[in-house]
């Protein structure tokens, strides 16, 4: 009960903060001490991320006080348990949440821009079904847990590759073909996944479903070894694409007359977004909601310019998954983080949309 009230309180504070920032961000002429409001909002978000990150290190089955945490950071901690809990359990898990969230937020924003479709998400291009089917097959074959992240990564990359190959025709990639081939490939792989799930026993079904909902339970340093480098590299690369993504907001002819090569952009964004999503899937399974909705919240905060949308999406995504994981850990039995982000995030998003519609902005 206590944790539930905390959750509601955090949710309320968070919603008030975002609301305030939307109000501020709407007035683009507003400046404080020469700094644009967008920049100040971004710093505010980063600050909240730091707070949630610290909370995430402290909250759990064995609570750790801020003093213990400070002792650990300054290297003067005397309790071996504290060191063990922070270093080997909480820190890798929180970093995993941070990487997953920022990767999904940024790849969602890039794909929505590239596909010119507000309903696009990292899982639209068959990535979720590709990794899903591989993982369900591995679970049903009772394979070693070691292979599951690798299987998820491979499944995601191969299915995205198939979707792009289908859409590539006469040296160009049509957006309609890309989206529709994504839907078609997802349907086929979804059916295969369902067949394997139906043939599995209860324990394996439960394991598979937990993974399919997205979970960070038990993540350790080993899960980040091969994924953090591509995620960080792709996040850095994505900011280089901000300019091209802005041009891609225009119709084909106008954007090409401004020097944009659409096919090259679609391939590069495809590669970058697929790698980001595949790595996040490899860490945490299929965390829904973040890739689809976070870019919209970012746009509500900072407008449509990708120079701002990408960093805002990254930080908001990280914040959502870290906070979601924090909430997921507060209950007696641990919820998968994907369920928490969708459960708490969607009503908030609906509230934001309705508020904007009432103000006549949407």
């Amino acid at each position, binding site marked *: 009960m206590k944790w539930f009230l905390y959750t509601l309180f955090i949710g309320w504070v968070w919603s008030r903060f975002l609301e305030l920032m939307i109000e501020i961000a709407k007035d*683009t*002429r507003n400046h404080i001490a020469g700094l644009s409001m967008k920049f100040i909002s971004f710093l505010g978000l980063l600050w909240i991320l730091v707070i949630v990150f610290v909370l995430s290190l402290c909250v759990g089955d064995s609570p750790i006080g801020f003093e213990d945490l400070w002792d650990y950071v300054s290297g003067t901690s005397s309790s071996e348990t504290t060191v063990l809990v922070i270093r080997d359990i909480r820190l890798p898990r929180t970093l995993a949440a941070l990487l997953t969230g920022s990767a999904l937020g940024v790849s969602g924003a890039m794909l929505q*821009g590239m596909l*010119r479709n507000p309903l696009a998400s990292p899982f639209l291009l068959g990535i979720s079904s590709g990794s899903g089917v591989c993982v369900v097959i591995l679970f049903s074959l009772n394979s070693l847990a070691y292979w599951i992240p690798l299987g998820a990564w491979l499944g995601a990359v191969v299915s995205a590759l198939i979707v792009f190959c289908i859409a590539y025709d006469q040296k160009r990639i049509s957006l309609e073909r890309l989206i529709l081939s994504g839907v078609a490939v997802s349907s086929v792989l979804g059916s295969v996944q369902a067949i394997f799930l139906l043939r599995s026993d209860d324990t394996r079904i439960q394991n598979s479903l937990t993974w399919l909902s997205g979970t960070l339970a038990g993540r350790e340093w080993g899960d980040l070894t091969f994924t953090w480098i591509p995620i960080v590299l792709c996040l850095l690369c994505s900011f*280089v694409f*901000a*300019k091209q993504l*802005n*041009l891609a*907001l*225009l*119709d084909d*002819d*106008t954007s*090409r*007359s*401004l*020097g944009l090569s659409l096919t090259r952009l679609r391939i590069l964004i495809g590669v970058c977004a697929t790698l980001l999503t595949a790595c996040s899937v490899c860490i945490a399974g299929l965390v829904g909601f973040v890739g689809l909705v976070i870019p919209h919240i970012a*746009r509500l905060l900072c*407008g*449509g*310019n990708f*120079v701002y949308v990408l960093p805002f999406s990254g930080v908001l995504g990280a914040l959502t998954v870290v906070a979601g994981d924090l909430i997921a850990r507060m209950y007696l039995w641990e919820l998968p983080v994907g369920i928490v982000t969708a459960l708490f995030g969607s009503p908030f998003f609906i509230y934001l949309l309705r508020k904007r519609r009432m103000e006549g*902005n949407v």
Partner: protein
Amino acid sequence: MEDLSLSDVSYSINSNSILEKISFSVGPGDWLCIAGCNGSGKSTLLRLMAGLIGPSHGCIQFGGTAFKDLPDKDKKISILSQRSNVNACLTVQDLVCLGRYPYLPSWGVRFSEADWEQVSYAIDFVGLNDLRDRSLDSLSGGERQRAFLALSLAQNGSILLLDEPTNHLDIVAQNQILNLLEKMANSGKIIVSVFHDLNHISRYSSHLALMRQGQLLEFGPTDHVFRSQSLSETFGLAIRVVEHEGQRCALY
């Protein structure tokens, strides 16, 4: 002189001829209008002149250099197509800034003083200064079209290509756009536009190209080409050109 010239330009898709042996030349300060029925190849001709597609035969040159060898094409040619649209909630200023992107270094997103000056000049030129921070979604059709014109102006190219820029606009907004284009032509740009309103053509353009089924029927100064016989032949309709207070009008 930096002329835009087409010599024997043809374009076909899968041996299906869309344009056949088009040749003409226009210079700085000229405003060329292309007129013809739907499907006569006007938009394809514009896309060829924008370098978005390459001709199957013939050559398009700007200032004596063939298009395929033309450096910085994205700084010289602007196009405002029928479908000019933006898929996001950008402000007027954000949209106009896109016109300066060809001038940015490949990795940079920061605009120089000169870029900002050109953006402000373009927004001022089209009279949207009071609306520069407004979202495009909240603008009227005419204001929106003026914002896109400012984008082309910010690009600061020598050639401006427009495909039916006054489509769906009321007569006040149409006049605003046409007067802006006239000012741009007077400042030395080459303007090439497709219009369906023959009276706009007679009032504003300096040159006229009449097209039918992918062929150029006639090309020349508007005063010479804007005649009853040529127009009737182009559109397959009885069109009469009359003069009213020094202005030629087409009746049909």
